[in-house]
């Protein structure tokens, strides 16, 4: 991990940040701008409640329920909100469907826009310069960093999240899952598959 500075020259720098943040939280609490118990609640929500399992539910449902898939195509915001995933950074959604003709990849070159409501907080790499700089100019190279090779005759469509639209990639349903339940299917859906830097897992990969 690039930011796992548990020792080395940057250790004192990060200890300094740790102290600064503690002082800031204390100051802002004293001034009545924040309530540390609310900060705890926000952190706990994103640690334990809002994460990629939400998106995996959306994807698995789209694989098993044609009516839902159709709704997701027409109005992803309403379809996703109908499952209760209404939280912030998911107010305006569009679903991008992978096929044997097209592979979608989502990025935010300007900051870190990400569909928190269905994927939770973004991984560090999503917010960092290597991904943000290269996803638009060399998407196939970025995908290779994730072990993915897209054939030249398959389109790669990159979506730069420059506004408040948030994107979820609907990966292709793995073969050999015809009789699988929605719940079982959801376990095949990874965070990266919904960003476009991965595929859904095969049955063999979860057995």
């Amino acid at each position, binding site marked *: 991990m690039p930011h796992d500075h548990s020792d080395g020259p940057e250790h004192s720098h990060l200890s300094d940040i740790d102290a600064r943040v503690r002082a800031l939280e204390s100051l802002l609490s004293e001034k009545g701008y924040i309530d540390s118990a609310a900060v705890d609640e926000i952190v706990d929500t994103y640690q334990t409640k809002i994460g990629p399992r939400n998106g995996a539910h959306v994807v698995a449902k789209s694989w098993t329920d044609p009516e839902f898939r159709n709704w997701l195509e027409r109005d992803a915001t309403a379809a996703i909100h109908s499952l209760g995933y209404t939280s912030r950074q998911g*107010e305006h959604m569009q679903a991008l469907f992978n096929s044997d003709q097209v592979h979608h990849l989502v990025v935010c070159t*300007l900051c870190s826009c990400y569909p928190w409501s269905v994927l939770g907080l973004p991984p560090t790499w999503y917010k960092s310069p290597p991904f943000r700089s290269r996803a*638009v*100019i060399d998407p196939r190279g970025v995908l290779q960093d994730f072990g993915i090779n897209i054939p030249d005759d398959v389109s*790669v469509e990159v979506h*730069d999240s*420059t506004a408040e639209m948030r994107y979820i990639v609907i990966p292709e349903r793995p073969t050999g899952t015809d009789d699988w339940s929605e719940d079982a299917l959801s376990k095949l859906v990874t965070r990266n598959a919904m960003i476009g830097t991965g595929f859904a897992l095969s049955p063999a990969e979860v057995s």
Partner: protein
Amino acid sequence: MNGAADLGGMMGFGPVDDEPEFPKFHNAWEERVLGIIVALGACGQWNLDQSRSARESMPPATYLSIPYYQIWLEAAITLMRARGMVTDEELRSGQQLIDPIAVKATLHPENVQKVLYTGGPVDRPEQGEPAFKAGDTVVTLNSNPTTHTRLPRYARDKIGEIERIHGFHVFPDDNALGIGENPTWLYKVRFSAQTLWGEDKNPNDTITLDLWEPYLRALE
């Protein structure tokens, strides 16, 4: 502005390092920063675009060398200092030295779920008709504003095609200046990789951006 945040197309940062879903945070201070920044939103002292503008306005060398949550931290401090919420002396001591300013609200734990699940939609009641429709060819503005914009450098003065109309959304360039939301039509615009990056790119590849009407002109 042409700041360090506008990263699309830059080179030399090396490969992307994947990471597992957990841990969500790599240092204890990062989770506190996330929570503090979300909680501060309730104070109503800045809007989304003002916070983005503060983050991208820091010196490029700083922006590129600190962890992402620290970018959030430094920008929030800049905004709070500018509004008289905190002073340098208070930040150094960690103790209140002047009275707090009046804020809209303080977020308490019993309201957190409601606030998170209500979100903050940026679509507004539609006014007038969109200038473009799906399939129209447009050219993006050639412009280098010194203030906040969401039209990245790599997509300026480029020819693209309207793919769909997303809706009528707050215009960030104005909202960041505090001169009003001035909502306008937002479009999904598709560009070929060859148009943006050159003939050696795969002719099957495209990049889409979400762009507001003031960024677009009809191709003459």
